[in-house]
């Protein structure tokens, strides 16, 4: 792999850009691998990357039914934060956030991490108390967040109307090193680095069955034939239930649609990410100038990657009160993704009833921010067969034990 650098740009400028290589190879599958990862979203690719980087396991295939990054990884609103309430969540999301800080250098690929600051607005007294509690929890967890009053919110976001009338802004939880990154670039950067280590990324290849004998997986049936493996990692987000069924077990997961939309591009007007959980809306501005907007999930089981129109209406109605200047903006595009929701709204990084099969899912509406940390933890689980400290609490046995990691109260909104 040729490195990207300022010298590479200069060199290619001199020779009409004829020397750029393909970022990753498109090989035909081998008969078998040491590890197969199903799903080339951010989490699957990061799992493969850290298997190679941290454990020297490179005889790996990542199998993807569509194109890499075409699932939720390429459909999300790219918010990155780690201001969670519970200790296990703060640990893994902060690990991820801190890996994002140097990910571009690590991958030699610009993922455009932009720690522009993230505000979670408190618009009820209940939320004020909740976020103050989170600030204290974060202090103990070593996650840098602070509570700020309405005046300071207004200073940070001049276009915000803090006076309501329905939902005045009473303050906010600020994480200064939260922000955004370019979602496709995260998938592409990991894919390029995996390919450079000799791993196979096999796109347009759907896994249709899992072959197992005596509680041990021997390989997967795919649209390109049978492929053998010593270990299997299932990392397929919205389709986790379907692949788990192929492997013969059931998950505490349901799939629902989550939508997002972007406005026409406008001049820079907001340079932080703002989340308003009471009214269910959040917004940031992309480098192209579009306002990137998201809201709540449709609450019924749904695999259509669309979502219901009235949710967009609710989200925009709420945001127009808080940001009156957006009321006459045109919306350019709207889309949906299928998110995998668990009972406690926390993810699963777990062993399964099959000895050499592992699963990573349940990131639901908020897993983009977790990609590097999740891949790191999943690689450790797959390599050693046992979870390390980051993943230990996220086993799916927690539902039987009643040991929930309850973030549904803390996270409130989809993001």
């Amino acid at each position, binding site marked *: 792999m040729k490195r990207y650098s300022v010298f590479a740009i200069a060199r290619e400028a001199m020779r009409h850009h004829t020397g750029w290589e393909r970022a990753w190879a498109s090989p035909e599958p081998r008969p078998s691998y040491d590890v197969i990862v199903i799903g080339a979203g951010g989490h699957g690719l990061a799992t493969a990357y850290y298997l190679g980087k941290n454990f020297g396991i490179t005889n790996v295939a990542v199998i993807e039914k569509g194109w890499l990054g075409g699932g939720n990884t390429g459909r999300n609103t790219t918010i990155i934060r780690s201001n969670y309430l519970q200790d296990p969540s703060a640990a893994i999301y902060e690990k991820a956030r801190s890996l994002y800080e140097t990910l571009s250098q690590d991958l030699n690929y610009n993922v455009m991490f932009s720690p522009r600051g993230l505000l979670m607005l408190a618009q009820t007294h209940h939320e004020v108390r909740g976020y103050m509690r989170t600030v204290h929890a974060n202090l103990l967890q070593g996650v840098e967040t602070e509570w700020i009053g309405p005046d300071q919110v207004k200073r940070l976001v001049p276009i915000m109307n803090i006076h309501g009338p329905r939902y005045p802004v009473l303050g906010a939880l600020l994480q200064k090193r939260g922000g955004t990154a370019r979602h496709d670039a995260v998938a592409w950067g990991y894919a390029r680095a995996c390919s450079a280590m000799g791993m196979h990324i096999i796109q347009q290849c759907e896994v249709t069955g899992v072959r197992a004998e005596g509680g041990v997986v021997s390989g997967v049936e795919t649209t390109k034939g049978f492929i053998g493996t010593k270990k299997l990692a299932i990392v397929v987000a919205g389709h986790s239930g379907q692949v788990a069924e192929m492997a013969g077990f*059931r998950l505490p*997961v*349901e799939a629902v649609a989550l939508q997002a939309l972007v406005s026409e591009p406008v001049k820079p007007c907001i340079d932080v990410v703002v989340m308003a959980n009471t009214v269910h809306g959040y917004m940031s501005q992309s480098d192209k100038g579009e306002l990137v907007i998201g809201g709540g999930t449709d*609450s*019924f089981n*749904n*695999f259509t990657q669309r979502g219901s129109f*009235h949710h967009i209406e609710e989200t925009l109605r709420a945001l127009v009160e808080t940001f009156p200047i957006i009321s006459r903006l045109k919306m350019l595009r709207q889309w949906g993704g299928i998110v995998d929701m668990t009972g406690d709204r926390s993810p699963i990084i777990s062993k399964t009833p099959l000895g050499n099969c592992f699963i990573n899912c349940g990131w639901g509406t908020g897993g983009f921010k977790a990609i590097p940390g999740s891949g790191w933890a999943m690689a450790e689980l797959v390599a050693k067969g046992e979870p390390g400290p980051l993943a230990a609490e996220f086993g799916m046995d927690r*539902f*039987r034990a009643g040991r929930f990691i309850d973030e549904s109260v803390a996270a409130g909104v989809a993001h």
Partner: protein
Amino acid sequence: MLILECPCCGVKAEETELSPGHEAHLKRFGPGSSDEEFESYMFARKNPKGVHFERWRHSYGCGKWFLAARCTATLEVFGTYPAQTSEPPPDIVARIKARRPEWEGCK
């Protein structure tokens, strides 16, 4: 927009009038059951991509619960029926089989 006919009051209700109640026909396990049974009753879900039987409440209408058979991949509705039913009625099963010959039945 999803439209379901409420079998209690007969109104063709649109989604904004309804609240979803997720998987129907769950077998309840309570005190005295094993941990596995209780866990699977509480958390494990079929979550099919295709035919799904589910509970709905006509919350901004008559307020009553009812059941619906629906395809989660296309949003096609096969029919609705009263909540006081322990398995899908034969006419709805027949309609699903006609529309989805590959359907393996209620697992």
